[in-house]
């Protein structure tokens, strides 16, 4: 590729500034004093009052729920999905393509189609407003993601290494544990992070399937708006706290983002 001119760098920087501006605006709002919110001057004395107010309320509990549910959903989907992905990568069986298509289709379905049956079933078995209930419904999108992404990564690990191990007497799963899995470790990390982000970001399922006990942070933010009046500083502070882990992680998984979000729909 040719080297970019100063003009290109400059216009890229300008566009980037415009794109990031709305997010930065929310960020600065979260550091403003209550009375300052409607002040448009860019120079102000930053304060942590909004964050302090959040910390003394119910928000930390929701944030904790978000962490538990996201970690739980990620762990469970990796545990179930990684061996399945390995089998799909190494085992040539009939209907392999049909199976892959089905797994892709489960990921395409609109969430509202899942929420009605899950809501009715959860009401019946008592899983409404529970952390376990949320972990289970997050499997509906995470499991397919894990199977697809990890299959891709296992496809990239040369078969010959495991075949040599098999010849030396190793079983399928000890070859998986000792050779394929360590070699696919970067992929495993990226897949895990992506699962975490998708679970952490969910709003729709949490809105419908939780009330108070299992409420996650995104729903808590919306409750600030609806039930506690328009405390913009607090809303912005909550938004900032929810976006922080995702921003940190996304730098790490940028390369895998498209592959993850299209989950098997495109070949790379």
């Amino acid at each position, binding site marked *: 590729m040719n080297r970019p001119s100063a003009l290109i760098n400059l216009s890229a920087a300008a566009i980037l500034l415009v794109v990031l501006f709305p997010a930065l*605006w929310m960020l600065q709002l979260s550091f403003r004093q209550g009375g300052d919110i409607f002040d448009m001057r860019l120079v102000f004395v930053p304060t942590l009052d909004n964050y302090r107010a959040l910390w003394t309320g119910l928000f930390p509990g929701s944030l904790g729920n978000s962490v538990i549910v996201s970690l739980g959903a990620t762990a469970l989907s990796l545990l179930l999905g990684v061996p399945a992905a390995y089998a799909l990568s190494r085992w040539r069986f009939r209907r392999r393509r049909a199976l892959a298509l089905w797994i892709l*289709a489960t990921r395409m379905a609109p969430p509202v189609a899942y*929420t*009605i*049956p899950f809501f009715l079933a959860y009401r019946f078995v008592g899983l409404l407003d529970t952390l376990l209930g949320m972990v289970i419904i997050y*499997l509906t999108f995470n499991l397919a993601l894990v199977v697809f992404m990890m299959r891709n990564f296992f496809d990239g690990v040369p078969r010959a290494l495991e075949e040599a191990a098999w010849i030396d007497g190793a079983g399928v799963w000890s070859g998986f544990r000792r050779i394929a899995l360590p070699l696919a470790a970067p992929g495993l990390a990226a897949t895990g992070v992506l699962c975490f982000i998708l679970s952490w970001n969910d709003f729709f399922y949490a809105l419908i399937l939780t009330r108070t006990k299992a409420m996650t942070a995104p729903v808590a933010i919306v409750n600030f708006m609806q039930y506690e009046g328009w405390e913009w500083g607090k809303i912005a502070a909550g938004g900032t706290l929810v976006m922080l882990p995702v921003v940190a992680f*996304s730098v790490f998984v940028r390369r895998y983002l498209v592959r993850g979000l299209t989950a098997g729909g495109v070949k790379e």
Partner: protein
Amino acid sequence: MTTEPSSLERLLPAPRRAPAALPHWRREQARAFATGLAPALFVLAVITLGPTVYLLVTSLTPLDPVHPHSALDFSDPVGNYRTLLGDGRFLNSVWVQTKLSVATVGLQLAIGLGVALLLNAGSRFLETARTAFILPMVLPPIVVAVIWKVIFTPDVSPLHRSLDALGLPVRSLIADPDLALWAIAVADTWEWFPFTMLMVLAALQMVPDEPIDAARIDGAGRIALFRYILYPYIRPTLVVAGLFRLIDSIKAFPLIYVLTNGGPGTVTEVTNYYAFVESFNFSYWGYGSAIATVMVAGVLMLSWLVGRLDAEQQRDE
């Protein structure tokens, strides 16, 4: 998960014979793979096929909380679907969805392509810029909604304040029936143009250098270079990216929930939102299921299209 290396060793007369040739080992291998595959498939079937069947069944009943025993009332199985066809609010929601999808997918393709072309040069700065540009798409959708609620709320909005200062006061865009949907389209485009940008960038990286160099030597300008060399290479990617965004646009929810609640009136009420309102505000579960079933059918058709296009591309390569 157990293995029997000793029995396998006994079966290996020559030390370097491929194990796949041995029927016993093959059977054992198949059994091991099936053991790894089975739990995931079982769970996936229970949490996805189960609910889909349940959804279909519920859509054939008039189920709501007032009539809990109607869960198995199939006396008028297509009743909900008949109602749908005459339900102005549903038909309106499909039209709103169509407008929103066309606008957002078009804008995301155009802007994503433009930014990708701008960033497709090798400098350290542009590399970093790429990572910064993806921020909107990884943000939690609810945070995106909060960000744009601020922008569209005159009290706290930098946009409204600046316009006021310039002597051009405008009403809140999300309160204006003519503009609310386009305000949502802007926010949605902001959130998702990085997706098309990333896909186009990946495709641009696959374009070989030779034809570009050759065209340059022949004196092709930037526009000709794009039109005749780059575009043919990235066209399939644009189509697939557009279809993916189209499928996802049908799931639009947090932006609408926070920015407009489907209003003013029903001008921003997309089908997904209407299904949510019928199912969870009014608790008409049977009717909501029928709407959701129609949506699933639409999404499956679009997914099938993605699969076909992808297969065609692979054949072409």
